[in-house]
């Protein structure tokens, strides 16, 4: 053969396949703000693969539009229905097999849930996370990093053993592989990889009052959904505390939190109060990184604003960060579709509540206030809150 490398060392296909996968990820990243609010994803609770239509990856070339003509064979008379149009790209009439048509077609990529989460959360971090109580060290995994003459048979390093056999025999003037001797055998050994971990407690506060329309609750739940996934994926030791509130607040299970329905008025202070109490008892800031995320439409009882502000100020001292998200979405249309223009009004026409205004008087770079008015902005809000160190405060 004129090409010298042995077949099993060839990596060209793998390399290009890898590059292709990178491009898939890039394409997904570009469209995250649309993808993450898909109803199907949020309601799937993360147990299946999602199909993501990716146009952006397509290798473009001049081609005909929808073309459903071709030649087939079989019985039938002119006019008989022989099939249906399927998705673009599945055109069965092409007789050519793999490789005959250049890569094209808008195609749907299957992405696992974790992969999607991972891509979207790549740049996100809990801000100001500090290693508390360094002594709490935990093995995170093992790494094979050495070879010895004694070991468990399961960890036999076949390649090295083979090599030793050949070497030993060569030293005696024999060629090739011969009988194996105990002296030939090499075993891989591992070391525990240890990494200091830090504990964090995340308080998720959600307004469930009557003014939280289903769309608003959808936005809040989507946000918490992704936040929860992010935390579970990225941090081993987090405790999640779910608090739902109207005029009263209660700690609920994760499941109840995401299926909560709306009723009653709003007193945000109730949630802050409960969070503070729980936090002091269970997660003293000395040994815990505490975070609070609160989503509401800001439709708070005006008389409660002062108390809420006060409580939040005191909470800030106990927390690495407090994020307050106000959902200003006011369009109750049932056929809402995220559109490219929905973000246009940002900053100009948003109506912010009196609570928001009251909270914005608090001077602290541990407090992040943000408002959100459409599904498309959920990703932006996540970025606002979880931009990591250096970019947190607004």
């Amino acid at each position: 053969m004129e090409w010298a490398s042995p077949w099993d060392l060839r990596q060209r296909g793998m390399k290009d396949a890898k590059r292709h996968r990178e491009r898939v990820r890039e394409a997904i990243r570009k469209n995250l703000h649309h993808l993450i609010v898909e109803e199907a994803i949020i309601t799937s609770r993360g147990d299946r693969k999602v199909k993501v239509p990716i146009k952006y990856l397509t290798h473009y070339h001049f081609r005909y539009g929808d073309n459903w003509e071709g030649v087939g064979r079989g019985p039938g008379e002119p006019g008989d229905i022989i099939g249906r149009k399927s998705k673009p790209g599945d055109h069965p009439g092409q007789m050519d097999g793999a490789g005959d048509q250049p890569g094209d077609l808008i195609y749907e990529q299957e992405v696992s849930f974790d992969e999607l989460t991972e891509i979207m959360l790549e740049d996100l971090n809990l801000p100001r996370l500090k290693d508390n109580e360094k002594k709490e060290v935990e093995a995170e995994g093992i790494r094979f990093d050495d070879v010895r003459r004694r070991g468990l048979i399961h960890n036999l390093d076949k390649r090295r053993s083979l090599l030793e056999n050949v070497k030993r025999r060569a030293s005696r003037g024999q060629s090739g592989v011969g009988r194996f001797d105990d002296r030939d055998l090499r075993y891989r050994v591992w070391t525990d990889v240890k990494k200091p971990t830090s504990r964090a407690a995340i308080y998720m506060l959600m307004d469930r009052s009557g003014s939280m329309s289903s769309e608003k609750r959808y936005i809040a739940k989507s946000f918490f959904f992704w936040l929860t996934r992010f935390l579970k994926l990225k941090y081993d030791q987090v405790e999640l505390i779910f608090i739902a509130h109207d005029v009263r607040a209660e700690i609920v299970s994760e499941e109840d939190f995401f299926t909560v329905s709306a009723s009653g008025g709003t007193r945000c202070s109730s949630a802050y109060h409960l969070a503070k109490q729980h936090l002091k008892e269970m997660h003293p800031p000395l040994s815990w990184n505490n975070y609070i995320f609160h989503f509401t439409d800001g439709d708070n009882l005006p008389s409660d604003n002062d108390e809420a502000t006060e409580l939040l100020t005191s909470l800030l001292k106990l927390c690495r960060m407090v994020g307050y998200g106000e959902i200003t979405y006011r369009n109750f249309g049932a056929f809402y579709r995220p559109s490219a223009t929905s973000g246009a009004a940002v900053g100009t026409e948003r109506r912010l509540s009196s609570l928001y205004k009251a909270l914005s008087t608090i001077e602290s770079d541990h407090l992040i206030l943000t408002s959100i008015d459409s599904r498309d902005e959920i990703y932006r809000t996540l970025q606002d809150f979880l931009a990591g160190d250096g970019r947190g405060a607004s």
Partner: protein
Amino acid sequence: MSRLLERQDQLIEIARRLGLDFYDIRFESVPWEVMDEIAAYGLPIRAQHWSYGRLFERNRVHGQMGLSKIYEIVINNDPVYAFLLDTNSEVENLLVTAHVAAHADFFKHNACFESTDRKMVTEAMEHAARIESYAEEYGAARVERIMDIALALERHIDPHKGVFRKGYPGRKVVERHVRSDQYADLTVEGVRLSKTKRVIGDKMPPHPERDLLWFLARYAPVENWERDILEMVREEAYYFYPQFTTKIINEGWASYWHAEIMKEYRELSPSEMVDFAALHGGVVQPGSGMSVNPYYLGYKIFVDVFHRYNDMYKAGESDIDGRAKLFEVRRHEDDFSFLRNYLTESLSEEMGLYTYAPACKEHPGGHDACPECEKIALDSRDLAEVVEGLLRPRYHYGMPRITIDDVAQGKLFLNHDEEIGRVLDREFAEKTMGYIFELWKAPILLSTRNDRGQRLELTMDEKGFHASIKGRNARRLS
């Protein structure tokens, strides 16, 4: 293994005895990863691009799911390289050996392959190395971008002009002697020539140019290394072109001969014969519904030609017998002429061929609310239409026919002129024009038609893409 080698030699000998003639074939048995890889790239080593990676991945997944298995890949080269899957059974390898021998014969003797580069295997390796060195020098991202562009345009070539072309003639005035009229030499005065002067090389391009990559490599303001990449990609596209236009006839030829060669081969055990019959049946299985297997189609036509010409020879209607006719067909035809000349009415009927089309005749472009538009109906069993339907996807390398018609004030004018009803995909046109704009660096205009037959002008310039309907009531569409 040595038994297989011996048996392969026997088959090759039979093939030669039966009249097949080919360059030496180097067989190599490779694992499926390598098989999938070569299938994706088309050549053992070729410049890297993610689009091959995607094909590779797809082949791999299909292979793992058992949807498809690639038994063999044969490379048109001197020597011919043939790759066999290392998990093939012995009978599979024997069939494939015979099949490959016929492909090799076809590569050597079919007229379409006369000018193909028989050293493409090493050539493509050199291309790959050169492109890799460009990636090191100019950055992988820039090289990938040029590859994106080049591969998007690679099929827009002009097979009649060939790979190696000179530039257009420069501007000059030529004197021509022309007869005053066509029948002047019949009159008493005899031939009276009048002198005319003509300017050539004034128009750019002098004729509508089909070879987009050639034109852009030559005349677009690109850097030398970029030009080099465009030219390498173009060269490989020319190499693959004859394989594209002879898919049906080439596979038919190979399938016909693997059956013939195996018939002559006496060394098969009874159980191997059964296996062979099953395998052969699989290779030439007809397909159904909305697809026809090209192997089946080509195979059936060759069998039919053989019998018809034998009969005609016996009846004194033909100078040559069936076998001789087969070799003549193999020499001269490509898919176009093969189907037009040798797919007969009765054979088409026997195979049950038909054309199909959307059931709804009211909405040619399709209509979301119309339930009929979703359906596809059997359209016709007329031979001419079946042949045309089979050939339609094979014109112009499977691409819409786009030409460069004019260059004026730096703008590049493209034209897409085809039968009404074959409409360009707008988004793809936009993006592809974007590629061309990147090379040409000045506005690109493309004239095409919409599904109502109206002239449509697409423009790509610094401001982006827009489309308008040409004519008195011109209006902007986007």
